[in-house]
C-alpha cells in the first residue's frame, strides 16, 4: 500500500472522528438543547439556608430562662473559591479567627464542591474586621445567626440541657440534620429538640464577582416553638441552694466526726432533689449537683472544660438517673403493703407480739435457725437503744428496722399464702423498677430484686464467669435451693439489699400514696406555644394506672409521716419549721453503701397532709444520716413551699 493511500485512510478516519463530535454537539445543543436549557436556568440559582432561632424556654411563672439572639457568624461558600485560593484562605481565616488551620481545612473538605459551611460565630469586632477585608477573602460571608442565651446560668441546667453539633448517632437517627447547626444534647433541649428547633429559611440568589445580582422571594425561617415549664425557677433556686448547703453541712459534720475519732469516709459534693405535685405530677423543681453552665456549650465547648465537667459527672442528672437504695424512705411503701395486704408476723420469735401486731424494738432481732442460711441475729445498725413495744405507726415514726424486718420474715414464712413477691409487687405498682416516663432522656429504671431476678442473675453469672459478678459467689453454691434468701426479702422491706431507685421514683411513689393511688407520668413541660404565643401542645401528665389504696391506709400513713417530723426521726430537723408543722409529713432514710463510703442521706416530705400539693425528695450522696443531713434540707424547701421563712440548714438528729 502506498504512503499516499495510507495517509488518505488516516484522513478519512480523522474526518469520521470530527464528524462524531460534530454530531454529538448537534445532538446536545439542538436536539436536546431546549430541554437542557430549561433545566439549566434553574441551576444558575444558588440557595442557602438561614438558620431559624430556637424557641424560648419559660418557667411556670413566665420567667424567661433561655432565649436566642442574633450574632455575627463567618460562613465560607466554596462556590466562589478557586482551588488555588484555598490554602491562602484557610491560612488567613484561621489566623483571623484563631482557629486550628487543619480543623478548618477538614471542615472545608467536608463541605464538598460548592458547599457552604459555618466557620464560627464571632464577636462584633472580628465581624467588622472580616467585613472590611471581604473583597480579598473570596467566598467568605458574615451573616447573622441565632445563638442560644441561657439567662439562668447553671440553674436548672440538667432540666434545660445544652446544645452540641450532631454526632454520628444523631445523624443516623435524623439523617436530614444540618451538620453545622447545633441541636439539643441533654434535658428538654434534647427531648423537645424537634419541637423547638424551628424551620430553616431558604434564600435563593445569583451571584457574580461575589455580589448578589439577583434574588428570589425567600422562605423566611420559622422560629421554633417556645416551651413553658411546670418548674418554678424561684423554687428551683431555693432547692439548688439548699442542696449546696446540705452538702456543706454534711462535710462539716464529717469533720466533727473525724475530730471525735469516728470512722468517716470522703467528703461529698453530690446531691439531688425533686419537687413533684402529687395531684398533677407536674415537676416543680428538679435539681442535681454538681451542675454546669449550658452557655459554655454555645459555639462549642473546648475539650479541656468538657473533660473537667465530664470527670466530675456534672452531666449526670442524679434526680432521674442516679441509683440509690431507697432505704428507710421505702418503709412507707412496706407500711402500705402491710396494711393493705394484712401481711403476717413471723411465729415463735422473741420480741414479736403477733396478736397485737407489735414488735419490741430493742435493736436486736433474734431469728430462728433458718434453712436457707440467713443470719440468726440481726442488729438494727442505726437505732440502738430500747424503744419499747411499737406498733406499725410507732415503727414508722421511729423508723424501726426490726418491725419491718419481722414483717419481711413473716411474709417469707407465709409466702405460700400471701405470695413471695407481694412487697415487690407493691413497689413496682408504685413506680420502682421501671422508668417513670418523665420527659427527660437517660432515665434509669432501677432494680427491684426478687427470687426470679436473683436466679436469672445466678444463671447468667455461672455461664459468664468472666463478667463482673452481681451476686456474692457464696450464693451460687449448688447445695442452696436458691440464691435468694428470706433475709433478702427482709432487707427489701427496709429498702436495702440490691434494691435501687432514683430520687424521682421515690418522689413518684410518695405522690401515688399521697393522692390515693393515681399513677401518672411526671412532666417537666407544661405547654408548647408557637412564636406568636398560640398554643401548639398542652402537655398533661398522662394517667398510666391506678393502685388500690384504702382511704384509711392513706390518711393513717400521712398522719404517721407527720409524726416522723413532730416526734420521730426528723423531729430535731423540723423543730424550727414554724407554723403549719402539723400539715407536714416526711420520712428519713439512711442508705447503706459500700464499706468504704458513707451512707446516703434521704428525706421525703409531703405537704400539706390534709390535701397533698408537694412531694419533696432529697438525697445527699454519701451525706451521712438522713435525719441529720437530708431532713434539714427538705425542711428548708418545705418551709419555702408552705410560705414560711426558710430557716438555716443545721444538723438534725442522727437517725435512720
Amino acid at each position, binding site marked *: 500500500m502506498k504512503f499516499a493511500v*495510507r495517509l488518505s485512510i488516516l484522513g478519512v478516519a480523522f474526518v469520521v472522528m470530527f464528524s462524531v463530535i460534530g454530531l454529538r*454537539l448537534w445532538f446536545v445543543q439542538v436536539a436536546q438543547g431546549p*430541554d437542557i*436549557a430549561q433545566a*439549566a*436556568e434553574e441551576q444558575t440559582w444558588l440557595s442557602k439556608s438561614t438558620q431559624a432561632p430556637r424557641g424560648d424556654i419559660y418557667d411556670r411563672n413566665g420567667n424567661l430562662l433561655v432565649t436566642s439572639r442574633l450574632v455575627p457568624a463567618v460562613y465560607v461558600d466554596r462556590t466562589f473559591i478557586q482551588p488555588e485560593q484555598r490554602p491562602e484562605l484557610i491560612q488567613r481565616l484561621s489566623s483571623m479567627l484563631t482557629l486550628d488551620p487543619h480543623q478548618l481545612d477538614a471542615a472545608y473538605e467536608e463541605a*464538598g464542591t460548592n458547599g457552604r459551611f459555618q466557620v464560627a460565630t464571632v464577636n462584633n469586632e472580628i465581624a467588622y474586621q472580616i467585613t472590611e477585608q471581604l473583597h480579598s477573602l473570596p467566598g467568605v460571608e458574615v451573616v447573622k445567626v441565632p445563638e442560644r442565651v441561657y439567662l439562668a446560668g447553671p440553674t436548672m441546667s440538667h432540666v434545660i440541657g445544652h446544645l452540641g453539633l450532631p454526632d454520628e448517632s444523631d445523624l443516623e437517627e435524623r439523617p436530614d440534620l444540618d451538620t453545622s447547626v447545633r441541636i439539643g444534647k441533654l434535658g428538654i433541649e434534647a427531648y423537645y429538640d424537634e419541637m423547638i428547633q424551628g424551620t430553616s429559611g431558604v434564600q435563593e440568589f445569583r451571584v457574580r464577582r461575589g455580589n448578589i445580582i439577583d434574588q428570589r422571594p425567600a422562605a423566611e425561617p420559622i422560629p421554633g416553638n417556645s416551651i413553658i415549664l411546670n418548674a418554678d425557677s424561684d423554687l428551683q433556686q431555693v432547692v439548688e441552694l439548699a442542696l449546696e448547703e446540705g452538702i456543706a453541712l454534711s462535710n462539716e459534720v464529717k469533720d466533727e466526726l473525724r475530730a471525735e475519732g469516728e470512722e468517716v469516709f470522703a467528703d461529698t459534693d453530690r446531691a439531688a432533689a425533686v419537687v413533684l405535685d402529687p395531684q398533677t405530677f407536674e415537676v416543680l423543681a428538679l435539681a442535681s449537683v454538681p451542675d454546669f453552665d449550658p452557655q459554655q456549650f454555645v459555639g462549642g465547648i473546648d475539650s479541656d472544660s468538657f473533660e473537667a465537667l465530664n470527670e466530675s459527672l456534672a452531666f449526670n442528672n442524679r434526680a432521674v438517673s442516679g441509683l440509690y437504695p431507697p432505704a428507710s424512705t421505702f418503709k412507707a411503701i412496706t407500711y402500705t403493703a402491710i396494711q393493705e395486704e394484712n401481711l403476717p408476723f413471723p411465729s415463735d420469735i422473741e420480741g414479736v407480739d403477733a396478736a397485737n401486731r407489735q414488735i419490741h424494738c430493742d435493736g436486736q432481732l433474734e431469728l430462728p435457725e433458718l434453712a436457707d442460711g440467713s443470719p440468726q441475729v440481726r442488729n438494727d445498725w442505726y437505732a440502738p437503744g430500747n424503744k419499747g413495744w411499737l406498733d406499725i405507726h410507732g415503727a414508722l415514726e421511729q423508723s424501726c428496722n426490726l418491725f419491718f424486718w419481722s414483717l419481711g420474715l413473716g411474709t417469707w414464712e407465709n409466702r405460700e399464702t400471701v405470695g413471695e413477691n407481694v412487697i415487690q409487687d407493691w413497689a413496682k405498682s408504685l413506680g420502682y423498677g421501671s422508668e417513670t416516663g418523665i420527659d427527660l432522656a437517660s432515665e434509669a429504671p432501677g432494680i427491684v430484686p426478687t427470687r426470679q431476678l436473683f436466679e436469672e442473675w445466678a444463671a447468667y453469672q455461672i455461664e459468664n464467669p468472666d463478667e463482673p459478678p452481681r451476686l456474692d459467689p457464696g450464693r451460687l453454691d449448688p447445695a442452696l435451693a436458691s440464691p435468694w434468701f428470706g433475709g433478702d426479702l427482709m432487707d427489701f422491706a427496709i429498702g436495702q439489699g440490691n434494691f435501687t431507685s432514683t430520687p424521682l421514683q421515690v418522689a413518684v411513689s410518695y405522690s401515688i400514696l399521697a393522692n390515693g393511688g393515681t399513677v401518672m407520668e411526671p412532666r417537666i413541660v407544661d405547654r408548647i406555644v408557637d412564636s406568636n404565643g398560640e398554643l401548639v401542645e398542652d402537655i398533661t401528665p398522662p394517667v398510666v394506672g391506678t393502685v388500690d389504696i384504702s382511704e384509711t391506709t392513706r390518711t393513717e400513713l400521712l398522719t404517721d409521716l407527720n409524726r416522723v417530723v413532730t416526734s420521730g426521726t426528723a423531729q430535731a430537723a423540723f423543730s424550727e419549721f414554724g407554723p403549719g408543722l402539723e400539715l407536714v409529713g416526711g420520712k428519713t432514710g439512711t442508705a447503706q453503701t459500700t464499706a468504704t463510703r458513707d451512707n446516703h442521706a434521704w428525706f421525703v416530705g409531703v405537704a400539706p397532709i390534709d390535701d397533698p400539693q408537694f412531694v419533696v425528695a432529697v438525697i445527699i450522696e454519701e451525706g451521712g444520716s438522713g435525719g441529720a443531713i437530708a431532713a434539714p434540707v427538705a425542711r428548708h424547701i418545705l418551709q419555702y413551699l408552705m410560705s414560711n421563712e426558710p430557716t438555716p440548714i443545721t444538723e438534725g438528729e442522727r437517725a435512720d
Partner: protein
Amino acid sequence: MTAVLSRLREVAVVRRNNRSDWLLFGTMLALSGFGLLMIYSATQAVGTFSMERQMIFVAAGLIIFSIASNIDYREYRSIVPAASLIILVLLVAVFFFPPINEVNRWIPLGFFNLQPAEFAKVVVIVALATLLAPPLSRDEMTGPRVLSWAKMGQACLLVTVPGFLILREPDLGTTMVFGFILFTMLFLAGATWRQMATLSAAVVGGVAAVFQFDLLSEYQMNRIRVLFDQTIEPEGIGYQLVQSKSAIGSGQLVGKGLFAEDSFTAFQYVPEQETDFIFTAVAEQLGLVGGLMVIVAFVVIVWRLFVIASNSRDRYGALIAAGIASMIVFHAFVNIGMTVGIMPVTGLPLPFLSLGGSFYMSMSLALGIANSVWLMRTPVPGENQLT
C-alpha cells in the same frame, strides 16, 4: 537572455517555496486569539489574571513557532538521541518535586510550572519519524515499503518508556496520546495488517492487565466509570460532566452570547472551565455555531498538516507532519468528546484554546516544525535533493 529568464524563474520558485504555510499559521493564530477571549470570559468573575498569563504563553509560542520554522527539520535527526535523553531525565525529575493536587506532573520554575510530558509528545513524534523513515534513497517516496518487526519493536519501546513514566505521574490522557501517535505513525510507516493486529492485541492485553491488576488509581477508574454513571462522585467529576453538558446544551444553536450574564461560564459553575473545559465556555456562549467553528478550525489545521505531509520532500518530514496531525486530532477529539460526555475525563486540554503554558508552547513547537517541513518541501536550485 534565456539564462537570465531561467534564473528569474528559479528565483520566483524559490520565493514561492520560501513562503510559510500562512493558512496553518493564521488558523493557529485565530484559535489562540479566540482562546484568550474564552479564557477571559471564563475567569472574569474571579479575576485571576488567567488571560494575561496565557498572553505571555502565546507570545512565547509565536517566537517558538518562528524559530522552529527557520530550523531545517532534517537537523533534528542528529539531536533526537540527546533530546530524548533530556526529556526522560525531566520526566523522572517531576517525581522529585512536591505534587500539585496530588499528581507529579510539573517542575516548578517560579514564573510557571514546566510540564515535560507536553514536550515529550513532540520529541516522541520526531524520534518515531527518525526511526521509521527509510534510509535516504532516491525512490523513498515511491518505492514499496515494508516495516520490519524489529523496527516496530523499537518504536514500541521508544513510546513505552516515557509513556510508562507519564502514566505513573499519573496522567492517563497523555499516555493515551502516545499510544494514538504510535498507532498512526506505525500505520503510515507501512505496518502490515498483521503487525497492526498484533499491536492492537498488545494494547487490548495491556488494558486488560491494567484493569486486572488494578494499576489505575481509584480516581482514574472513576473517570471511566462516570461516563456510564454520572451519579458517581456527584460532588466531583460527575458534577463536572453534568455541569458541562448542561452548559453546552443550554447554549443551543447560537449560544447565550459572549459574556452572557446568565451563563454557567459567567457563574463559574463548570470546574476547570478555563483549562480542560474551555470548549464548554465556547459552546455555551456561542452555541453550536461557535462550537462548529472551533471544530472547523481544527479540520483546517489537520488538512494543512496532511498537505504538508504529502508534499514533504522525504518520508521523514511526512511522518512528522502526520504524527503532529494525529496528536492534534486526538487532543481535540478526546477533549471536546469529554465536554459533551462521550469521552472519559482524562484531563487532555484543547490545543491553542486551553489555558496552559507548557501545552501551548509544545503545540506551537509542533506546528513550527511542520511549517519547516513545508518550507523545505522543494529542493531549491543548486541544492542536493538527497541531503
